[in-house]
């Protein structure tokens, strides 16, 4: 049984070396409490995407342990992955499918029964204002619409924890605010959020707890308030500057 005090995500000593010898994760340990809105901040190339990929076996870590709501992400990958939703950094929609099919097939891959999948698809199409595009092939959509389909797809199997990998990179302001509002609402409803971003305002806006990652290592971690106090900073940006040592840009 999953108890309330089991963390949503527990990462211990995760190490990942790519085949070209680059050490992308150098012993990362991290705990995300159930129901938290957690931000993973770091400059480009810090290892954020590698960390997410390692949890869902898209990258193969050299060593380390990962537990998702107490389930081992590798030994019990079926149970673990069913609880995870991923909205990847890069758009990767199946070009042979329509918008509607993208959601229904994804739900099927996650074992969701047909009727439930259709209901959830309907809700999410409405939620992301995609109803009039439901029969369109994903390859014909604009960039912003593709993003919306990606978010909807990540949610259609009702994950308990959602990985949002730089969700608002290249997204227009309106969609950004709508997305912020929606993920906040999902989080209030109990869904754990792991957001990666190098956009500090986003972290300031959304996250209670923050980890700063740099060069494959966690450089600082704590609640927003604790970090500000610890580094004598007024906002997340100042914390970031003190820890990472330079600006994002």
């Amino acid at each position, binding site marked *: 049984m999953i108890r309330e005090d089991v963390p949503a995500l527990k990462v211990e000593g995760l190490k990942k070396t*790519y*085949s070209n010898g680059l050490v992308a994760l150098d012993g990362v340990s991290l705990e995300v409490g159930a129901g938290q809105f957690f931000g993973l901040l770091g400059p480009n190339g810090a290892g954020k995407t590698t960390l997410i*990929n390692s949890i*869902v*076996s*898209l*990258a*193969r870590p050299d060593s380390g342990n990962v537990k998702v709501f107490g389930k081992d992400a590798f030994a019990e*990958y*079926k*149970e673990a*992955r*069913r609880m*995870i939703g*991923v909205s*990847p950094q*890069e758009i*990767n*929609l*199946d*070009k*042979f*499918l329509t918008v509607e*099919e993208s959601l229904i*097939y*994804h739900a*099927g*891959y*996650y*074992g*969701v*029964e047909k009727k439930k999948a259709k209901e959830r698809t309907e809700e999410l199409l409405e939620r992301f204002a995609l109803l009039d595009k439901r029969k369109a092939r994903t390859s014909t959509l604009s960039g912003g619409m593709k993003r919306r389909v990606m978010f909807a*797809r990540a949610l259609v199997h009702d994950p308990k924890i959602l990985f949002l990998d730089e969700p608002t990179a290249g997204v227009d302001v309106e969609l950004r605010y709508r997305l912020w509002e929606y993920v906040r609402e999902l989080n209030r409803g109990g869904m754990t959020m792991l957001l990666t971003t190098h956009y500090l305002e986003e972290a300031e806006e959304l996250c209670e707890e923050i980890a700063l990652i740099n060069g494959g290592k966690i450089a600082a971690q704590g609640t927003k308030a604790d970090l500000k106090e610890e580094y004598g900073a007024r906002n997340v940006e100042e914390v970031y500057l003190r820890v990472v040592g330079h600006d994002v840009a």
Partner: protein
Amino acid sequence: MTLLESAFNRSFRTLLGREILRFVRVWTQTLIPPLLTSLLYVVVFGVALGGRIREVDGVPYLQYILPGVALMSLITGAYMNTSTSVFDAKRERYIDDILISPMSDAQIALAYTLGGTLRGLIVGVGVFVVGTPFAGAGVSHPVLLLLTATTVAFTFSALGVVVGVVSARIDHVTFMTNVVIQPLAFLGGVFYSADMLPPALKLATLFNPIFYMVDAARYATLRASDTNPYPTLAIVVALAALAFAGAWWAMNRGPNLRY
């Protein structure tokens, strides 16, 4: 839940369904061209040249080549399906959505492989059915023929998965088709009996796996063949197992799939 139920669970069936949807949706590229090409073979080699070759092993020439021609289409159909589907999915990274789902690597490999197997069978059976009125005659061992056809389609479909994964560029996929599969199929005794070849070529033919497959299909259809069909079938089954092991490996360890 039994082992079978969990292997063929909803996740697996959904991916298989997606593979079928894909080739049905682009049927003008996947189902029609191979039918046309094979009909051209039947016309050119059977009807036009058949008058000169009349009989091989006591069988009218068109009848003699039809099982092999159908098998060639089946092989290319099965192979093309998985190699292009997997290659596209990898190039545009939408395969990630499948790789991070709760499916096992074996399930993913099997769903892709069976999708290609089905396309190969549809095309192969289609060619056979369309060619039969021209060639005449029926099938002596239908069960053996279906078994052979399915195993052969499965083998090349699984091989297509491997090629789709390991190919870094689309030319690698087409290279395999044009430089390996097509020549082997052409030299696999589709249009002649190995007995008609000079000894050196005949020996070379014995190293061509497609030769055994064509031969088994021909035996099952016409009872005319170069070798005993049962050891042949055993070889074909072994090749299928080997190819599937390759597809499984590709999903698990293939380059640039799971980094």
